[in-house]
């Protein structure tokens, strides 16, 4: 479980996060949704320590991450896996070496054991034939899958995903969403996903937090989101003509 308490963050005097209080539950796919510029990525980067909050704290299973020094943070960071928007794979390493990288750095595994683990993780994300390819030689969807394999290689307790579907076609997006959802249940980890893709929200959103202008505007399950009273969330969810028609159709049939 991750608790975010009273987080404030501003850049050059401009307030981006205002008194954020939210809990991300273990074994569930926790989604942070919101419009572009609402502060989703800033919140995620603050949670993993890439940004320092102006005030407030991020607590990992009772351990206050925000108050820790660099060396103390290392221990928690070893428990974190992260999937970046662009994958952030190391260009100079092959797919297999990318997945083996955290194992070589932080475990005492032999090279053969590292290769076995990389094989397992790559197989888990359905990438059995790309081991010796470099990131520049694979597609966007494959990069995302390699990044997921790398994120889970060192058996993390927490998985963070920054817009895992960006730049992907709808079919690949659903594959990635399902993979994240299955891994969360399978490994019993706390997963936090940033997205503004309504497909993802409806597919995998166990615990959804809607961020609006730097504040948590609404929280709930994916089944509750269609019936929300929040005007801002309704504007976000029903922004497209398709969703508006879908809502009218559902209302017409008494949902």
């Amino acid at each position: 479980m991750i608790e975010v308490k009273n987080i404030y963050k501003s850049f050059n005097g401009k307030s981006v996060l205002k008194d954020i209080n939210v809990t991300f539950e273990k074994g569930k796919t926790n989604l942070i949704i919101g419009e572009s510029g609402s502060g989703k990525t800033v919140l995620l980067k603050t949670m993993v320590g890439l940004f320092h909050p102006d005030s407030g704290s991020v607590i990992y299973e009772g351990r206050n991450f925000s108050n820790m020094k660099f060396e103390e943070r290392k221990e928690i960071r070893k428990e974190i896996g992260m999937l970046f928007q662009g994958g952030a794979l190391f260009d100079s390493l092959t797919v297999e070496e990318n997945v083996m990288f955290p194992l070589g750095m932080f475990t005492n595994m032999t090279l053969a054991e590292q290769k076995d683990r990389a094989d397992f993780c790559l197989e888990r994300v359905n990438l059995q034939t790309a081991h010796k390819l470099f990131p520049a030689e694979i597609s966007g969807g494959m990069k995302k899958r390699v990044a997921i394999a790398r994120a889970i290689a060192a058996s993390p307790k927490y998985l963070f995903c920054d817009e895992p579907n960006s730049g992907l076609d709808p079919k690949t997006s659903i594959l990635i969403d399902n993979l994240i959802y299955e891994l969360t249940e399978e490994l019993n980890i706390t997963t936090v996903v940033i997205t503004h893709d309504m497909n993802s929200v409806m597919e995998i959103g166990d615990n959804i937090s809607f961020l609006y202008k730097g504040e948590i505007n609404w929280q709930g399950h994916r089944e509750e989101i269609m019936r929300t009273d929040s005007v801002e969330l309704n504007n976000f969810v029903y922004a497209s003509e398709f969703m508006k028609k879908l809502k009218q159709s559902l209302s017409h049939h008494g949902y």
Partner: protein
Amino acid sequence: MNWFFHIGRYYIMMVRVFSKPEKWSIYRNQFVKEIDNLGIGSLGIVLIISVFMGAVITIQSAFGFESPWIPLYAVGVASRDSIILEFSPTIVSLILAGKVGSNIASEIGTMKVTEQIDALEIMGINSKAYLILPKIVAAVFINPFLIVISMFLSLLGGLIGGTMTGAVTSYQFIYGIQYDFRPYNVTYALIKTLFFAFIITSVSAYHGYYTQGGALEVGKSSTNAVVYSSIVILLFNFILTQILLS
């Protein structure tokens, strides 16, 4: 004010660069890769520039010494001193600042803007040490060898160029480069080389590491890396010359 900001941030970066590595074996592998990348990869350009510049320095020296009162072996003496004291340690280092410096800044800068450095940090890796320390150690280790090779090749170029153009005979040139030879000059050149290697790698890495934006900013960082490392090399060349030769 801006200069103070950069010097302070550079200092803080260097403190992190020289902190204890997570795993020595990984750093050792990186060090070997950087020796190949920064050192062996620069041999070609050092070879070409040294041979031709050695020849040009010898011909220019001969042109300046066209007097019956100056013995012809003085061409060898002047060429040797120019090459050992200034050309090989300073000019070759400036050329390496262009080649190696832009390479380091663009590599690290690209890693920064594509969030690869964030990925390292989130894994709990000290990205500054992991990316920069092996480059500094490799350059400080390999550059003296490059400079000694450059000295040898420049003198060889001087011999070939001088004799081919008739500016000097091979006997007089070889006699000249041995005449009143001071081994301290080589020591002085190698001390300068160590400082310059450190400057090239650390200043370029600094510009790469603090890149913000996209491809355009990576290009700017690369240019700044070459410009600023060259300026710092020239500044330290003056200071070290004053300290070591005065």
